[in-house]
């Protein structure tokens, strides 16, 4: 058993960066997740595909407790965050998330969007945060936009800023919730390229996506969800070329 714990991790070694065990989530009478179990190893890139309403986004949002699960467990780096008394604000710093609708802070510049949380939450000095912001914006190709307001950026640029903002917290896992769905087609590629680079750098990623090309090319494992359960999972070549389940085949025939 390998022990991927980093020096800055206080707790015991863990095999999985993220473990989701028998997760259920209901909104009123409607059960959206009907017992989902998913384990993600460090540096693994997992893509979650499936029809809309299948529970993909809810699953992702349960991983950092933006949605409170009805039952089941979410374990991040060996810590069960569904237990009472867990400091969720600390856990969330390890779990970055990027949303479909970017959610940049419109009253702040790009630089302030990036530096706000590390300064206020982690108490890191301003200068260090600004330097790191420059570095990350350079990586996503937007260093020249550092003093711009989100309104003046294209959707693709905003989404890359959002990725950089999440990376400012030095997360161990990144969650992507249909991050290209709100983008004009010609802007999708620049965002996917940024994500590919991140994957190549060894980031653990859970990606909910409709981009089958990205899932096939970048992911280590593809999860197909439908009606609140994981129907089938496996390496991308198997899921896309030789799916076992009829529902998977039916879905892929519709989207490919």
């Amino acid at each position, binding site marked *: 058993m390998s022990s991927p714990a980093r020096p800055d991790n206080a707790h015991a070694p863990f095999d999985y960066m993220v473990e989701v065990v028998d997760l259920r989530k209901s909104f009123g009478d409607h059960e959206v997740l009907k017992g989902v179990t998913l384990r993600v190893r460090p540096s693994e890139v997992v893509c979650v595909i499936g029809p809309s309403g299948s529970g993909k986004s809810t699953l992702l949002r349960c991983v950092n407790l933006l949605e409170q699960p009805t039952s089941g467990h979410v374990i991040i780096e060996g810590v069960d965050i569904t237990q009472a008394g867990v400091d969720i*604000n600390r856990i*969330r710093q390890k779990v970055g998330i990027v949303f479909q609708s970017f*959610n940049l802070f*419109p*009253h702040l510049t790009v630089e302030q969007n990036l530096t*706000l949380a590390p300064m206020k939450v982690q108490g890191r000095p301003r200068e260090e945060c600004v330097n790191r912001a420059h570095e990350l914006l350079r990586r996503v190709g937007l260093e020249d936009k550092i003093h711009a307001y989100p309104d003046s950026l294209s959707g693709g640029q905003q989404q890359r800023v959002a990725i950089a*903002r*999440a990376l400012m*917290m030095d997360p161990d896992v990144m969650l992507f919730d249909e991050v290209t769905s709100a983008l004009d087609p010609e802007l999708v590629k620049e965002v996917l390229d940024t994500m590919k680079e991140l994957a190549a750098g060894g980031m653990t990623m859970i990606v909910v996506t409709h981009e089958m090309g990205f899932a096939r090319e970048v992911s280590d494992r593809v999860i197909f969800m439908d009606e609140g359960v994981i129907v089938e999972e496996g390496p991308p070549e198997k899921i896309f070329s030789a799916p076992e389940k009829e529902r998977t085949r039916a879905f892929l025939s519709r989207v490919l």
Partner: protein
Amino acid sequence: MAILAVFAPGEIIDKYFNLHYGLQYLPHLLYAARLTILLSLVGEFFGIIIGLAMALMRLSHHRLVRAPAVFYINLFRGTPLLVQLMFIYFALPFAGVNLEPIQAGMVGLALNSGAYVAEIFRAGIQSIHRGQMEAARSLGMSHAQAMRYVILPQAFRVVIPPLTNEFVALLKDSSLASVILVQELAYQMRALASATYNLTSYTEAAALYLIMTLPLSKLSDYLEKKLKVVKR
């Protein structure tokens, strides 16, 4: 016959637009208008502080925090300001709370506007897309940090026009303080008229209220347009 007399032009000018009395009243009315402005500013200032606190409590997930705010807002929006002022000035002394008229007026106006401002802030906060709160929380911010650094700065922009309108309403409502003997503009208006049997003070007071409120209404319209453009 008396009615006909009122309609005679010379009579009207003499009664309502009398230059002699007008000039004589003006310094008194201007002095009283200062009190009107003071009352309104103090009322609005504390109204904003109370209103912000009540709005945040009103939006809490805890029933025990929410309930007092709901009670407060309902109480002060559901009863007339006139009754509130009279209660504070005439009824509270029997409970050992003795306030000067001006103090009672300020307290009443602050408490009353606090209830309206609370609803303005609540609407402002709720108008900010929930994705903003989620983004802030997902970066590890506490609820309080997210409010302070992300939600409220955006909500403040949204509430500036309705807050300006609220201030205009408050300035006009401050005239009710005349009933509890605060010697503000409306009080002075009546006092001068009954002392001299000339009604020009009413005309002048109305004009002074307009001079105070119209620029504020214009400012509100301007801010509404300007802030909308920024928000797109």
